[in-house]
């Protein structure tokens, strides 16, 4: 009970801090929004990578798919012909009213989520026959191919990219708007996954992680579970892609929409840093990672990638269990791992 109160107080503090942060640090609104997005990346990656034991290197596919879908819908909603607009490479400036802007954004984000979920269903059919490293390479291939293919597709601007419709208000207002989209989205992801892992579904994907053959032998509908797990990741990543495209204001296939070697790898690193297969690990990992990343970009410019690479190497060689995994090894009783000889402590999940 005492622990519950503590947890609640902690969550309330995080929420309040989340609301206050852009007003306390107005110059960092964009970076703070990115932090929430990183938390979302880590959480959604962990659904497969940590909870289900499927290390996907291609989750960024849903991010990019959501981004493109959202932006195309926004352009169409503003009344422009997409093909004609993209053919002019940003020479046409889209002017929209608030109503048009928000209408396009909302419809765009909804369709981005649905489109990404559809991608997860379709590609799931292909890659869920693969196991272990083959799955990782298979998903990586799909994400890389997606970036290259979109780069040759003139309708969506090809390699040149698309400029996103401009926000009608002033830039500070725009920064706040996107902060207050990223923040609740990350919180929703966390709450949704927290619920999901507490259901039978959560146990089943853990079983798939530990021994998929055994799970099949016990009658679990493994493909169904795997597909739904990926769909849930895709849902949130699709929306986050739509939001990020608008935050950046320019969508381009290789660096912004399908950044396989930056965001695609960050997702994995953040989870490994925090502790995979836990709910709080990805949150912790993403926060620590983002701070380290920004610090190296600020104070070690020129060496930032080296520093980041060193962090990854240290993480993988000597600290595989991550922050939470390490804590669990050190204080197992705090995580409920103990011999019980009376009925006093019931399973709390």
């Amino acid at each position, binding site marked *: 009970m005492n622990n519950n109160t503590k947890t609640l107080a902690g969550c309330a503090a995080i929420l309040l801090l989340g609301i206050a942060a852009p007003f306390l640090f107005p110059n960092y609104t964009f970076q703070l929004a990115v932090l929430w997005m990183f938390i979302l990346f880590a959480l959604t990656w962990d659904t497969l990578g940590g909870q289900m034991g499927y290390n996907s290197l291609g989750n960024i596919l849903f991010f990019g798919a959501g981004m493109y879908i959202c932006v195309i819908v926004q352009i169409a909603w503003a009344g422009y012909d997409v093909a004609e607009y993209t053919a002019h490479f940003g020479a046409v400036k889209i002017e929209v009213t608030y109503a048009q802007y928000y209408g396009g954004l909302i419809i765009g984000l909804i369709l981005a989520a649905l489109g990404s979920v559809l991608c997860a269903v379709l590609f799931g059919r292909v890659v869920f026959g693969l196991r272990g490293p083959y799955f990782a390479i298979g998903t990586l291939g799909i994400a890389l191919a997606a970036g290259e293919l979109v780069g040759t597709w003139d309708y969506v601007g090809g390699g040149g990219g698309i400029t996103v419709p401009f926000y009608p208000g002033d830039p500070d207002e725009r920064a706040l708007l996107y902060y207050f989209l990223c923040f609740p989205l990350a919180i929703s992801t966390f709450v949704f996954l927290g619920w999901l892992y507490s259901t039978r579904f959560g146990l089943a994907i853990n079983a798939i992680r530990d021994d998929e053959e055994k799970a*099949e032998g016990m009658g679990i509908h493994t493909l169904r579970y795997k597909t739904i797990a990926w769909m849930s990741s895709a849902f949130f990543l699709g929306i986050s892609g739509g939001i990020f495209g608008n935050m950046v204001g320019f969508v381009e296939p290789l660096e912004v929409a399908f950044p396989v070697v930056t965001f695609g790898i960050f997702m994995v690193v953040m989870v490994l840093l925090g502790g995979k297969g836990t709910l709080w690990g990805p949150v912790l990992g993403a926060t620590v990672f983002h701070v380290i990343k920004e610090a190296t970009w600020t104070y070690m410019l020129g060496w930032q990638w080296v520093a980041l690479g060193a962090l990854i190497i240290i993480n993988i060689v000597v600290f595989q269990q991550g922050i939470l995994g390490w804590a669990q090894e050190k204080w197992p009783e705090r995580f409920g791992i103990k011999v019980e000889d009376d009925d006093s402590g019931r399973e709390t999940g």
Partner: protein
Amino acid sequence: MVTSSSSATNGLIECQGVTKTFGGVVANDDIALSVPPGRITGLIGPNGSGKTTLFNSIVGYHPLDSGSIQFKRKEISKLRVPQIARLGILRTFQQTRIYSKMNCVKNMLVSVPHRCETYRTMFSEHSPEVTERAEELLEFVGLYQKRLLISGDLSFGQQKLLEFAMALMNEPEVLLLDEPTTRINPTLINGLIHRLRRANEQMGITLFVIEHNMRVIMNLADHIYCLANGKLLAEGTPDMIQNDKRVIDAYLGGQV
């Protein structure tokens, strides 16, 4: 649970002419056997005689070369592993397979039957009755005190007991046990035999058991099949098998 309606001639599992080869090795050669409902049937034979291959064929791990396997008169040899499991045929593994990073209670909860799963049950929490059932079964195999430990940290024998409890949680009609007493401390074997019997008598689960320990299988089984070199060598009651010259020869010949 014991279905008295099915006639004595019709087994719960019926194998006819089951043949399985791996490359040039004939692992199962034209095997016919029957597992009667509500009983304990034994399967013995020297190492490499094709016992586990037969188990794998029944639960759908690989396609048959020829022959038929029926469960309650329904052909199952073309079905896949999870489908067969959902029909009510379950097997435990010789090497013991559990979900090693989860605690014992979770291992049990995830083993509930998946026969009539809907999207609603998939995303619901386990009811208190199910948790209670899980704890009862853990008590039954003597693991209640250790139920919150990560199962991968348990000893091999305890893992084996956990796997057995998980199988019971799944409420199978037939349970195929692959060497249940191998590598279990001899002092615990009697307890295990007792539990197998109780599962059979009280829960009405038909057992089909591969076993190397002759004392165990002769005590446990009502009817025993003996394989040698992939062929069915003999069958009969434990007494008949014990005194069968061919069985004795096969074992002596096989173990030198």
